[in-house]
């Protein structure tokens, strides 16, 4: 009787030990699988985002590319739209600033409409403090304005804000938005022809007391973007035109 009991107890202990070992093994396997899952997701994600930001520009905004070529002067903004327009909208933006992208999405159509109807002209200060792409994009923006397709290029830069803005991407964007990437334009982009101007714009923004992007002024008066709606912007432009 008692020997059977002993055997039973030993049997039980062995089974318990087996079970504990099995559980430990399961746990090790599970942790490896979990760690592998996280590594694969993160590594795959980095590769995916790398691809997303280095591919060709795809979004093509519809804009009249009819603006005439403009001269680039150090410290002076890029004028976009009719010089005779009664209202001046001054914009301080960085092409890689997330809030500028949201601003453009929300208010870009209203502003473009005012430009096209001749109600307003934009004076653009393309600032560049976020990264290298901000600088290359600001330079290319000046090249495009000089070549006469500044308006379309501006919209194209924001429509493809996810891109890192390498030189080939910036040149390809020119053809996407209907401009002709002439040799002059390509050289202008590749050589950073307006590097000094880009620096001068940052300095000008500093001098003008601009604290953040986007900053918008209508006829020289700063607009509170936080409370702005497309309708109130439209009303502001109409108001400013009548004064």
């Amino acid at each position, binding site marked *: 009787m008692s020997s059977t009991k002993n055997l039973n107890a030993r049997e*039980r202990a062995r089974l*318990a030990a087996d079970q504990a070992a099995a559980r430990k093994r*399961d746990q090790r396997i599970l942790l490896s699988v*979990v760690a592998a899952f996280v590594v694969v997701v993160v590594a795959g994600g980095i590769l995916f985002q790398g691809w997303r930001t280095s591919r060709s520009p795809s979004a093509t905004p519809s804009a009249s590319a009819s603006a005439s070529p403009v001269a680039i002067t150090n410290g002076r903004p890029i004028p976009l739209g009719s010089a005779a327009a009664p209202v001046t909208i001054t914009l301080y933006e960085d092409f890689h600033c*997330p809030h500028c992208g949201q601003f453009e999405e929300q208010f870009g159509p209203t502003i473009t409409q005012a430009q096209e109807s001749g109600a307003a002209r934009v004076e653009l200060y393309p600032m560049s403090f976020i*990264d290298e792409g901000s600088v290359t994009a600001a330079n290319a923006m000046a090249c495009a304005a000089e070549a006469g397709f500044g308006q379309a290029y501006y919209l194209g830069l924001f429509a493809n804000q*996810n891109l890192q803005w390498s030189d080939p991407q910036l040149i390809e964007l020119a053809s996407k938005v209907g401009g002709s990437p002439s040799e002059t334009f390509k050289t202008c982009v590749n050589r950073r022809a307006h590097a000094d101007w880009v620096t001068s714009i940052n300095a000008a923004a500093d001098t003008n007391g601009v604290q953040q992007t986007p900053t918008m002024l209508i006829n020289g008066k700063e607009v509170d973007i936080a409370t702005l709606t497309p309708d109130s912007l439209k009303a502001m432009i109409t108001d400013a035109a009548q004064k």
Partner: protein
Amino acid sequence: MSAPIATTPRLAGLASWISTAARLVLGAVFLIAGGLKVIDPQSSVAAVRAYRLLPSSLANVVGWGLPFAEIALGLLLLTGIATRVVAAASAILLVIFIAAVASAAARGLSIDCGCFGGGGDVAPGQTAYGLEILRDIGLLLLAVWLVWKPRSRFTLDRFSSAQYETRELP
């Protein structure tokens, strides 16, 4: 005949419900935070850059990879797989977030934490470091609770809570 080798403590009943809530809240927050950032890699990189802590090339990798890490942790928490280990990883991540926001505040930067997308520089006086840190501390407490009591309901987790499990011998 069968005999349990360990019994479930009575309090574990309540604790397991708290753990369930903690797991779901933490998982949902991570999943949402990662999801909002993953759609806009350029913003995400800009948000990392705004902290001025990492060199340019590393900021790219973190800006691109971090949202995916959050999504992975969020999914693991929501499904309840290996909860203790995942909660520990979440706690480490949250401590890093808190340190980064605190360092931005200490250096007098004016940035948005970019915790749920967006991010970057904001006007002085528009910062919300106190709230951001408080929220992260709250989440950290949930993570620490889960490291302490990983056992919860509705999970695929069978392994992280072995000490409470009632296993039957054949």
